[in-house]
């Protein structure tokens, strides 16, 4: 199965969007969710979620608290903050602008 590297700089966007959709998740769930929804196309080097999550914690986009999984194990759940929601819309519009521009360039005749 062929998997594509995610475009650089979009990891935050993916995490933010995932959390926005589902409320709260732990790291493993986030990784799985991204993979599932992208229909296994987007491959995240799973470990790299964690440094990204740390940076998002510093920025105050997400908060983390410990909880238990359905399998009754301790896991750290991440949740979007108001600042995170705002950041999501910033990243979204930025992404759309870039994609739009790229599309225009490659579709130009």
């Amino acid at each position, binding site marked *: 199965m062929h998997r594509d590297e995610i475009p650089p700089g979009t990891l935050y966007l993916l995490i933010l969007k995932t959390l926005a959709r589902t409320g709260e998740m*732990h*790291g493993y769930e986030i990784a799985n969710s991204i993979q599932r929804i992208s229909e296994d196309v987007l491959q995240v080097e799973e*470990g*790299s979620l*964690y440094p990204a999550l740390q940076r998002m914690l510093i920025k105050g986009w997400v908060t983390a608290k410990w909880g238990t999984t359905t399998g009754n194990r301790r*896991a750290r759940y991440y949740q979007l903050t108001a600042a995170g929601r705002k950041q999501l819309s910033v990243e979204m519009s930025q992404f759309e602008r870039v994609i739009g521009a790229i599309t225009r360039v490659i579709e130009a005749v």
Partner: protein
Amino acid sequence: MEWLRELARRFRMLVHRREFDADLEEEMRLHLELRQEEQLQSGMAADEARAAARRRFGNTTYLKEESHFAWGWEWFENFLMDVRYGLRMLRKAPGFSAVAVLTIALGIGATTAIFSVVDGTLLHALPYPEPEQLVSIEDELPGVGARDVGMNEPEWQDLERSGIFEYVSPAWFDENNLTGAPQPTRVRLLIVAPNYFALLGVQPQLGRAFNREDHSPGLLTEVLISDGLWKRSFGGDPHVLEKSVRIDTDLYRIVGVMRPGFDAPGRTAEERNVEIWAATSFYGAPMVDHPPRYRRNLPTAIARLKPGLTIAEAQSRVDALVAALQKEFPVDYPARNAWTVRLVPLKERLVGNVRQSLVLLLGAVGSVLLIGCVNVANLLLARASARGREMAIRQALGAARSRLTRQLLTESVVLSVLGGIAGLAVLFSLKGFLLRILPGNLPRLNEVSISWSVLLFALGASFVAGAIFGLAPALHAGRLDITHALKQEGRGSTGSGQRARTRRALVVTEFALSLVLMIAASLLLQSFRDLLNARLGFNPENVMSVRTRLPEPNDTAIDKYKTAPQEAPFLREVLRRGATLPGVEEAAIGDSASIPLDQSQRELNLIADGQFFFTLEGRDIQSDQPPVAERSRVTPGYFHLLEIPLQRGRLFNELDNEETPAVAVINEAFARTYWPKEDPLGRRFKSTRTGSPWIAVVGVIANARTESLAEGEVPQVYLDLYQTGAKRLAIFLRGHLDAGAIPGEVRQEVESVDPTLPVFDAQTLKETVAASLAARRFSMEMITVFALTALLLASLGIYGVISYIVSERTHEIGIRIALGATRGNILGTVLLQGLQLAIAGAVVGLVGALIVSHLMAGLLYGVRPTDPLTFVGVAILLMGVALLASCLPARRAMRVDPMCALRDA
């Protein structure tokens, strides 16, 4: 505010960083386990499942580090690690650590001590609200060469109304007799305007200040007293405010007691330690009623600028005012006087005199610290060669060069801060002692303390020192050649060529600095010695002076000593009684100006009695500024008692009295200045004060350095005390005196003549002479101590470097000896190396010393700042020390056994 919250989150992470790491670890583990379980369920073997999970996850260690670094604290954690490592390294080399820490402790301790004085006196703002608005008003007549001539009541009113100042207050320092307390005391009194305390912005601790609106004529009948006087003379009595006291027989009511530690902003210690403040609007008896403008009877004035006005702005407005006044009163302000009014920051008036000495001291002690740093740098370099392999291994294992440099720098800063702390500890324990050795007339002495700024300075100095001496070894570590270092067996002493060059450069610096200090010290020493050996022209041996003072009541009706004839019986009686005291062979009385070399009274003499301006008979008055001379009033026995020889004419005698014409004895300098080609005997002059009689010169005495040790030719004139009278008196006694008993005995005798008179300031003349040198002695002694320390450190430095060079070259020396070099050759080579360093240091140092000695020219006496003998002498001395210090290692080199040296290598 978002960045603040972010900072808070980062800080929380720093505090709980172990927890954070554990959380991260657990989180990642969970992730891996869940993935592994998923793979297992899809039918993979256990090993394979784990490997796959790991593959998808990535490099755990790297990711953990990334996550950790994201918080941005790794520099701090590295720093902590380096500090811990540094401390461990220091413990491992206790000898080295002790020497280094002690050197730095000495340097930081001494530098901080001097800095605390500089901080308290020069840097701190004055302890009044908005101190930058406070100025001293100084009138000058540069056209006739007169400085600080004071002002008068009309000018004060002009300034008050000018709109430039919030308040202006003249300040008139005087001494008075205080009676009403158990013992009559002499008190230091400051006569000010009623707005004085409002001007300074201070409140008394008890009672109230003057009513600043009170402009009634004459002196107010209210006074404020100092905390010291309150405790001393009134036992700290809380009901003191209801008391009345007699000051020079006039009655005053005490309305306030100032706070402890409140000093008047004056130039000398006497002017600062005011004990009583009296107020007046400077008109109406006993003041001169609205005096003419050319009479400058108010010695000094201070003022507070209007808020928002800078000194420069105020100065230009004052200049305009002065110009307008000169136009309005052309007779009082002749153009050739070039009258100017200068606004000087009040702090400058207080500390201007000591700035040069203090800055010199700080420079000297800073140099000692720097030399100490250089020594420690040398020690560190020596150790660095021993640690060469350690550094090479660390680099081989992947340590970045910058990281190694940082680690070594941290180690030296740790060392230096330890030294700084040790230095401060010593400073704290010696605080009392150190404060005692400061000269007592240092301004703002009570503000000298180990304050926060001083602590901050010590900390900063430690950091800087650590960075300075750590820099060379740290940079060298960065430039290490790994392969070369690792190949070397045993002592991995590589890069030694370069390191040796650095060490030599350091020693040269050290020598240059020491030379500068040594030259500064020896110039000061010579100045001091010359001053001590100056031919005094009088004999201070076995002489004591005791002071008393006659009251000057404002109410002349109650003045017992109004005229000279009224005073004469008192003088005669005190002299008669004084001569009968045990051990006394001779007695004389003079005014306070007649006490030789008495510094404490100088300003007061000028203020209270004024300078003695006079005109010569038969001489055209050439300028408005008449000649001025030092004037003393003495009884006939004064000259014989002090052994000042008569050159021509006669001294005063019993036939001179109030009935006979006024006579004067002058010194040779006076004769030479005013009658250079004529016989001064019989010539006449008179004071410029209206109604003064002509005074005839009857005798010429030899010059004596009674005014200043540094000046041998000051024109001086002596008047007969019986003819002139004086209020501020000094009783001189010569003989085999019991210095402990005399003050009491004199007090008894004076009191039996007049029980209201204070008796104070008993001193042997030798003490007075020594006191006049106290400030000079202090800077001379300090600089000498610093210079000797510097010399010691520098010789240790050169010893270290030469030893190092010898041990590095043992192998080579062995070969040379084996090839037939004589021991003498070897000795010569090694000594030459030491000498080369010393010469290089001396050349650099001589240039530095030339600059420094010119800057301190004002502190020198009798010796030129470029005295060649001093420069050459000190340079030779330093080279001698360098040779001596090189001798020990040179002898070791000489005794190298070629067999051993070659086998060991």
